[in-house]
C-alpha cells in the first residue's frame, strides 16, 4: 500500500506538469513568507483541484488505467502471471497492483481525486451558475451588445413606447422571460430562455459524485478496510467448512459483499464464499438456502434455454420458510441480500461402472461404483493409481455438420428461418470425466461417453485421453461388433497382446493362408506373423515401419509394407474368430463386409497401446445429482448509483439539448438594436437569430433586413 501511495503524486505530477500553466502553482519562495502565503497556497491548490485541466487529466489517467485492466487478465492465480511475465516483471507488476487494477490503491485514489475535483468544481460553479441562470444581464452596455457575433440594427418607424409593447408581446409569445432596464436614451429588454440547461450541469456532475461514492461502498474497499483494521484474514479454501477459523468468517451484518453459494441437490448452505487474493472468506447469510432441484431446459436444437433452481429459503432469525425458483435474469432479493443464478455443477452424481482390464489374461470385467468428486485409491484392486471422478454430463449435444460451414449463396437467401441447413444437432448421451493419478502425482485425464456413437453407419465407443490440461483430448474409437457389441474388441485385444497365445495365433494365421503341403513355407509365414505381432505389441505401426526402414532395402519397402499390413490385418481377423469361438458365436466368412470392422479394430488396437490406463472404465448406470452455483450479493451503494445514473441521463440531455438563449432588444429613439447570445455556439443560432430578427422587424414595422 505504501508503494501505491507514493506512485499517485508522481503520476499526477507527470500528467499535470505539461498542463498547468506557468505561474499557476505557487512558487517555492512565496510559500516561506508566512500565513498569508500559506492561505494563498491552499487557495491555489483548491483552484488546481477544481480546474478543468485537472479534471480532464484525471479522466485521461482513468481511461488509460482502465485499459491496463482489460489488457492484463485480472485476478488470475499467481503462477499464471509468473508464466506470462517471467521472474523479473511478475513481482514488479504485482507491486503496481496490475493484477487487480480496479481495486488497487492508486486506482481508487484516482477515483477519489475525481470525486473531489468534481465536488469542488460544482461548489465553485454553483454561485456564478445560479446567478447566470436567474440573471438577465439587463445592465449590458450598448457597446458590448454591438460586439456580439449576432446583432442587427433596425431603423424604427414606431415611437419607443409602442415598440416596447410589440417587443414584449413577441418575446412572451416565443417563450422568453425578460426584464426591462430603463435608460436615459431608451430601454433595454433583456430576455432569456432555456436556463434549465444549466441545471443539467449540476445534475450530471452530482451524478458522477453519487455513482463513484456508491461504487466505492459496494466495491472491495469496505472489505479491505475490515482486513486492514480488523482481525479478518482470508484462509485457504482447501479444507472443510467446519475447520475455517473465525478470522475468515464474516457476519451477516457485513456492509457489502459478492460471493458464490454452492448447493448440491438435497443440500443447503447459509454462507457464501468470497474470493480474497489466493484465499477465501466465508460470508454468513441471514438465511439458509436449500436446493430441491436444479433444472436445465433445452431448445429443440439442444442449446440450453433455461437454467432454474428450485430453492427453499429459511430465515435464520424468524424461521420463516418459503419456496422460490431462481432463474438467469430473474434475481431475488431477501433481507438485503440478492441471489442470482450464476452457474451449475455436478453435485456428486452416483456412477456405476464396469472395469475392463486391458492386460491380457487379467480378470474378467467386474463392477465398480463411485460418485463425482470422489478420490478412490485403487491399490486394493491391484492398480497403482488413484481414481478421481471429476465430472458427469447427462446430455452432450454436438453439432454434427453435414456440410462444411459457408453454405454459400443459395443458403444466404431464402429467409433467416430457412437457412438452418448444414447443422445437425445430435445428442451423444451421457459423458463422464475422470483422472488417473499415479504414485508420483502425475495425472492423465479421460473423457468417456457412455453410449456408442454412429458414424457413417458404424458404431463406436469413444474414450478421450490427455496427459495434460493444455492438450486436446485424443480419442480411442472402439468398434462394436454386430452381435458381440463392445465385448468383441476387448476379447480380440486380450488374444492379440497375450505373449502366451502368440504362437497359436500365428500358427492359425499361417494355416489359414497356406493350407497346402509346404510346411517349411508355412513355418516361415508363421514366424513372420509371430515377429510382426511382437513388433506391433511393442510399438504399434510405428515399430513395424521402423523395422522396415532398418532392415529392408529401399526399393522393396513399399511392397513389404503392404505385406506387413496384410499380415497384421489377417492376425486381427484370426484373433476375432478365436474370440467368437470362445464366446460360442458362429464363425464368419472372410470378406469385404467385415473389412471395416477389422480395420477399425486394428486402429483401436494400435491406439490402445498409448491409452495410458490399465483398464477401460465403462459407465453402465447413473443417478444424476446436480448442484447450483448462486451468487449472493449485498450492495447498499446501489441506490446511490442508480439515482446517480438517473441524474446523469437527465443532466446529459439537459446540458446538450436545452439551449440557453439570450435576446437583447435595445429600444432607442432612433434605433432598435438586437443582439443574441447562447452558451452553445452552433449553426442553429444563426438561424434562430435570423428568425427573431425578421419577426421583430415585421412586428416593429421595420423592413426586414436583407442578408
Amino acid at each position: 500500500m505504501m508503494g501505491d501511495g507514493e506512485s499517485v503524486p508522481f503520476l499526477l505530477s507527470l500528467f499535470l506538469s505539461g498542463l498547468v500553466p506557468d505561474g499557476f502553482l505557487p512558487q517555492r519562495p512565496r510559500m516561506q513568507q508566512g500565513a498569508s502565503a500559506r492561505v494563498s497556497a491552499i487557495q491555489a491548490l483548491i483552484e488546481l483541484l477544481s480546474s478543468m485541466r485537472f479534471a480532464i487529466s484525471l479522466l485521461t489517467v482513468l481511461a488509460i488505467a482502465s485499459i491496463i485492466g482489460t489488457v492484463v487478465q485480472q485476478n488470475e492465480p499467481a503462477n499464471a502471471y509468473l508464466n506470462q511475465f517471467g521472474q523479473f516483471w511478475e513481482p514488479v507488476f504485482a507491486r503496481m497492483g496490475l493484477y487487480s487494477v480496479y481495486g488497487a490503491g492508486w486506482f481508487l485514489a484516482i477515483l477519489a481525486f475525481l470525486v473531489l475535483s468534481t465536488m469542488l468544481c460544482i461548489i465553485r460553479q454553483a454561485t456564478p451558475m445560479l446567478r447566470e441562470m436567474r440573471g438577465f444581464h439587463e445592465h449590458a452596455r450598448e457597446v458590448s451588445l454591438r460586439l456580439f457575433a449576432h446583432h442587427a440594427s433596425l431603423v424604427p418607424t414606431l415611437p419607443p413606447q409602442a415598440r416596447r409593447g410589440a417587443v414584449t408581446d413577441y418575446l412572451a409569445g416565443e417563450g422568453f422571460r425578460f426584464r426591462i432596464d430603463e435608460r436615459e436614451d431608451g430601454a433595454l429588454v433583456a430576455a432569456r430562455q432555456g436556463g434549465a440547461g444549466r441545471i443539467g450541469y449540476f445534475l450530471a456532475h452530482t451524478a458522477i459524485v453519487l455513482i463513484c461514492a456508491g461504487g466505492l461502498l459496494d466495491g472491495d474497499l469496505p472489505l479491505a478496510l475490515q482486513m486492514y483494521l480488523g482481525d479478518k484474514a482470508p484462509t485457504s479454501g482447501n479444507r472443510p467448512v467446519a475447520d475455517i477459523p473465525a478470522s475468515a468468517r464474516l457476519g451477516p451484518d457485513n456492509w457489502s459483499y459478492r460471493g458464490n453459494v454452492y448447493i448440491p441437490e438435497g443440500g443447503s448452505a447459509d454462507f457464501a464464499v468470497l474470493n480474497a487474493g489466493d484465499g477465501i472468506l466465508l460470508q454468513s447469510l441471514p438465511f439458509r438456502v436449500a436446493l430441491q432441484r436444479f433444472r436445465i431446459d433445452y431448445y429443440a436444437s439442444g442449446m440450453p434455454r433455461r437454467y432454474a433452481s428450485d430453492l427453499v429459503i429459511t430465515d435464520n432469525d424468524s424461521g420463516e420458510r418459503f419456496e422460490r425458483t431462481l432463474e438467469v435474469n430473474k434475481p431475488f432479493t431477501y433481507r438485503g441480500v440478492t441471489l442470482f443464478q450464476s452457474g451449475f455443477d455436478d453435485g456428486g452424481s452416483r456412477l456405476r461402472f464396469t472395469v475392463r482390464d486391458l492386460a491380457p489374461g487379467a480378470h474378467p470385467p467386474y463392477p465398480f461404483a463411485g460418485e463425482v468428486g470422489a478420490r478412490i485409491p485403487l491399490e486394493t484392486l491391484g492398480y497403482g493409481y488413484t481414481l478421481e471422478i471429476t465430472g458427469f454430463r447427462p446430455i452432450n449435444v454436438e453439432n454434427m455438420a453435414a456440410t462444411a460451414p459457408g453454405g454459400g449463396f443459395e443458403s444466404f437467401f431464402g429467409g433467416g428461418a430457412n437457412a438452418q441447413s448444414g447443422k445437425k444437432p445430435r445428442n451423444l448421451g451421457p459423458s463422464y470425466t475422470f483422472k488417473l493419478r499415479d504414485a508420483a502425482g502425475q495425472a492423465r485425464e479421460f473423457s468417456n461417453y457412455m453410449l456408442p456413437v454412429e458414424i457413417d453407419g458404424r458404431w463406436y465407443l469413444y474414450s478421450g485421453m490427455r496427459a495434460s490440461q493444455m492438450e486436446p483430448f485424443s480419442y480411442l474409437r472402439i468398434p462394436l461388433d454386430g452381435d458381440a457389441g463392445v465385448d468383441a474388441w476387448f476379447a480380440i485385444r486380450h488374444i492379440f497382446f497375450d505373449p502366451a497365445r502368440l504362437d497359436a495365433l500365428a500358427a492359425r494365421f499361417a494355416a489359414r493362408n497356406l493350407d497346402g503341403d509346404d510346411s517349411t513355407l508355412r513355418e516361415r509365414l508363421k514366424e513372420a506373423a509371430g515377429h510382426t505381432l511382437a513388433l506391433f505389441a511393442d510399438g504399434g505401426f510405428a515399430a513395424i515401419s521402423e523395422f522396415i526402414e532398418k532392415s529392408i532395402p529401399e526399393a522393396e519397402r513399399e511392397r513389404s509394407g503392404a505385406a506387413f499390413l496384410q499380415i497384421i490385418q489377417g492376425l486381427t481377423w484370426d484373433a476375432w474368430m478365436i474370440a467368437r469361438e470362445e464366446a460360442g458365436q458362429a464363425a464368419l466368412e472372410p470378406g469385404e463386409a467385415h473389412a471395416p470392422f477389422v480395420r477399425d479394430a486394428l486402429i483401436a488396437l494400435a491406439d490402445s497401446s498409448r491409452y495410458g490406463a490399465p483398464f477401460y472404465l465403462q459407465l453402465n448406470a447413473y443417478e444424476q445429482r446436480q448442484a447450483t452455483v448462486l451468487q449472493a450479493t449485498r450492495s447498499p451503494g446501489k441506490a446511490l448509483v442508480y439515482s446517480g445514473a438517473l441524474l446523469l441521463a437527465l443532466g446529459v440531455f439537459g446540458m446538450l439539448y436545452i439551449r440557453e438563449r439570450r435576446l437583447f432588444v435595445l429600444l432607442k429613439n432612433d434605433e432598435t438594436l438586437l443582439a443574441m447570445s447562447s452558451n452553445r455556439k452552433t449553426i442553429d443560432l444563426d438561424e434562430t437569430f435570423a428568425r427573431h430578427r425578421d419577426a421583430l422587424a415585421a412586428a416593429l414595422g421595420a423592413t426586414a433586413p436583407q442578408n
Partner: protein
Amino acid sequence: MELAPSPSSSSAAPPSAPGAPAPKRRAYGDWLYALALVTGACFAFLRYGQAMDGYDAAILVLHVPILAALGRAWRPFRPFLAIVAVLALAGIWLYQGDPARAEQTFFLKYLISSQAAIAWMSALFFIATGAYWLGMAARSDFAERTGSALTWAASVMGATGLFVRWYESYLLGPDIGHIPISNLYEVFVLFSLITALLYLFYEGRYGTRKLGAFVLLTVSIAVAFLLWYAFTREAYQIQPLVPALQSYWMKVHVPANFVGYGGFALAAMAGAAHLLVSRGILAGRLPAPKVLEDVMYKAIAIGFAFFTIATILGALWAAEAWGSYWSWDPKETWALIVWLNYAIWLHMRLTRGLRGAMLAWWALGGLLVTTFAFLGVNMFLSGLHSYGSL
C-alpha cells in the same frame, strides 16, 4: 432605411430551413400521422394483446409518442416509417405462418424475406456510396440526389429486413422468437441502418448532400464486413437466445448503444472531411468547415447522450444477469473508456471552446476507440459480454 446586419449572421440560415410552409396543412399532416400511429398501436393491441405482458403493453404505448415526436421533428421519417410498415406487414402476410414459403413466394424470395431485404439493403448502400462519390467527383447534384434516394431505399430495406426477421424467428418456434439484435450479424444491419438514418437526418437539416460520400463509405465498410461474416460463418442463421440474453433490457440497451455508435461514426466522418477541407483538399466538393464542425458536434452530442443511456441500461441489466451493476468486465470497461473519451471531447469543446483540427482528429480517433469497444473486445478480450463473438 439602412440596415446593418452583422457579417456573421449573413452567413446563412441553411437553405433547408423551412420557410414556414402552410402551417394549417402541416397540422393536418401531424394529426393524420398521429392518428395512423394510434390506429396501428390499437390494432396491434387488439390483435396480440392477450400475448402481451405489462412490459410489452407499456412499450407499445410508449412507441406512439416517441414515433410521433420523431415524425414531427423530422418529416421524411413519416413516409419512411409508412413504407417500412407496409413492406414488413406484406412480408408477414406472405409467409402465412410457413417458413418454407420464403423459397416459394416470388416476393419473399427476391424482395422482402429478411435475407433478401438485407441483401437489397447491402446492394443499395453500395450503389448509393458510388453515386455520392460520383456526385462529389463530378460535382453533380443529380448523382448526389440519386445517392440520397438510394440511401433512403437501402434504409427501408434494412428496416424491413429486421422486422421480417423478427417474425421469421417466431416461425422457427414460439420459444425461439426474439428481436433480431442478438448477434453480430443482426447488429451490423442495425448499425448500417442507424448510421444511414442519422446521416439522412443531418443531410436534410443542413441541406447539403456533400458529406454522403464519406458517411456512406463507413456504412459500406460495415456492410462489406456483414456480407463477409455472413458468407464465411453462416452468421445469418437465426439462433435461439442463451438464457443470459433473455431479458427485456436487450430491446432498449442494444438500440441505444447503436445510436451511440452511429453518432460517433458520423462524427468521425465529418471530422475526416473537416481535416481535408481545412487543408484545401476537396474544398468546394465537401461542406464548409463550419457546417462540418457543427455536424461533428451534433453527432457526438446525440451519440454521447444515447451512449450514456445505453451504458446505464447495460449496468441495470448486468445487475440482473451477472449479479453486479458494474464488474469491470472488458466490455464494461471499454464502454467507460469510450464514454470518457467523448466526455473529454465535449468538455474541450463546450467548456474550453476548443475548435478546429484538434477536435476533428479526436473525433476520428474516437471512432477507433469505439470500434475496439464494439468489435475488438469481442475478438481479443474474453469476458462475460461475449455474445457477438467472431
